[in-house]
């Protein structure tokens, strides 16, 4: 674990050659590729609902054959015509996170000023983003003064394109108030976070899992080591730049002496 903790991103094993292109591909953001056909789907979809259920007469003159205006669409994307739901097209802008005002937020802002980055609510759920330097203070205050005595979950989210790449998320619950809140801190890659084990013993395994999956080091943790993956695992799988195939390719190369067909 010690070497691991110094450089969480030191993922580069000997198999440099095999890895480089794969990483480049991963950097292109895997999310984008499925996005593309999706966009096409949406484009095709718009005419079809108008055409299919009711208004074949309204189907503008451009759509030449009166009998089956859906035909071109069907040819382009066979899966689409099924989605002939009249409600689809305008799609109201989804709800946006809105500022969350409350006594708690005001008093936090008064005390910590710019340490409180933002306080939002979304779908009735509240979360407050704080500076990582005051995180332990905030958590302690949440437990003692605000009654959030139960730490439900600790997790992280990786945003590789952001300057502060990680969100560390604490889901808290208050038994006395029957209320949930999320406390988040944005941190840079390699930045350490103060461990919350002293505040909630349950943080022990949860932080170990975050370390295992993201490589985020929690300072002051009694035994920060991998929990789900083997000790000798390379890299941290839930980072967005982690190549799923890399480990497999390397194994094939070392043990079978051939290039992996994956």
């Amino acid at each position, binding site marked *: 674990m010690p070497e691991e903790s110094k450089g969480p991103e030191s993922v580069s094993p000997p198999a440099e050659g095999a890895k480089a292109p794969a990483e480049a591909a991963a950097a292109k953001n*895997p*999310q984008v590729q*499925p*996005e593309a056909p*999706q966009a096409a*789907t949406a484009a095709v979809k718009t005419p079809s609902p108008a055409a299919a259920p009711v208004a074949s007469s309204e189907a503008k003159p451009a759509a030449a054959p009166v009998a089956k205006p859906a035909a071109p669409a069907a040819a382009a994307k066979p899966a689409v015509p*099924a*989605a002939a*739901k009249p*409600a*689809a097209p305008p799609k109201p*802008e*989804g*709800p*946006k*996170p809105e500022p969350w005002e409350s006594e708690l937020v005001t008093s936090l802002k008064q005390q910590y000023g710019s340490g409180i980055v933002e306080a939002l609510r*979304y*779908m009735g*759920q509240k*979360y407050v983003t704080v500076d990582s330097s005051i995180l332990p203070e905030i958590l302690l205050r949440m437990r003692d003064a605000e009654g959030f*005595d*139960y*730490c*439900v*979950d600790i*997790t992280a*989210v*990786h945003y590789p394109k952001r300057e502060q790449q990680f969100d560390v*998320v604490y*889901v808290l619950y208050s*038994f006395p108030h*029957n209320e*949930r809140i*999320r406390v988040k801190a944005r941190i840079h890659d390699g930045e350490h976070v103060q461990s919350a*084990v002293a*505040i*909630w*013993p*349950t943080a*022990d*395994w*949860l932080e170990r899992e975050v370390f295992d*999956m993201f490589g985020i080091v929690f300072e002051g943790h*009694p*035994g920060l080591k*991998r*929990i*789900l*993956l*083997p000790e000798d695992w390379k890299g941290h*799988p*839930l980072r967005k730049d982690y190549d*799923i195939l890399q480990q497999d390719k390397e194994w094939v190369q070392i043990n079978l002496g051939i290039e992996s067909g994956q």
Partner: protein
Amino acid sequence: MSDSTKLDYLDLDVKDKTFLDTTEMVLNMGPQHPSTHGVLRVILKLDGEKVLGTECIIGYLHRGVEKIGENRTYTMFNPYTDRMDYVAAVSNGLGYCETVEKLLNVEAPARAQYIRVILTELCRISSHQVWLGTHALDIGALTPLFYAFRDREEILKIFEKYCGARLTTHAFRIGGCIYETYEGFEEDVKKFCTFFLPKLDEYEELLTTNRIWVTRTKNVGILKPEDCIALGVTGPVLRASGVKWDLRRAQPYECYKDLDFEIPTGVNGDTYDRYLVRVAEMRQSVRILQQAVDSIPAGPIMAKVPKVIKPPVGEVYHSIEAPKGELGYFIVSDGSTQPYRVRVRPPSFVNLQALDVMVRGMLVADVVAVIGTLDIVLGEVDR
């Protein structure tokens, strides 16, 4: 937080210590051991029979469910959730579907909610039956295993008739249910309720006043309520310690607010109380089933959900009361068809952490009892 909840890691690297001058020894339990309920490895540090400390080694069943979630669409990820807590697959699916529905800002229609509640409560009973059977077996009572599994069959038959699968059911879809109830569904559930209540008495006859059972479970693995909260323990384990907290009541989802049931709690927080709480919970589940079957409304079973699920940008945490405790999903959406991040908050994983606190100072045989009473499923611990 009291000092007893402090988790100490075992100092296993002390090479120069021989066992000649000390009575301490390190014993490895698992990962292939019948009483560890799967592939859990527990390292025990012992002073004679007494447990000085434990350390759990987990991850043998890790499949990277959260990573898989990032690489599948919302719909495609749904069946994967069944494979986490495979003893209570229906609950996993319910939690996931509800979370995505929350992201989409839709709600399942009333009829779907009732179907969901009926199946989840059946699933809760079947999960508790598996727990009862295996837990009793660990302690040395062989018969409850056969009784529990025999009766669980009736639930699995209902599942099979409803959706074609017995264990990994994939019963729900985002927005409601995909299958309408089959002909005779209500009768089957009613029949099960009348069939099951006497069976439950049978289990209790075997165990509740059984002298061996009581000796093996009373005052074993005591967990104080404040320790439960500090350790994040939820579900029947928390309730057995006297904290009356159930998400079905605290933050009702589906149609639980319309149903009348009680939250059984324990007093001492020991293994015996946890047994009583779970048995009482099964009775309450039957009560819920009877009400739900009688008041199941007519109507659609699927809300208006787009074929391609693309929730707006945002993040949501939602949790339900699974048979083992609070099962939470934290999903971050970036507006695409795939979740940007799926986090599962597994009750078994968090509850297992309490093992160390519970068995310190106890005997090795009690470790077996405590692992059983925590009701862990390694598929969920490791995900």
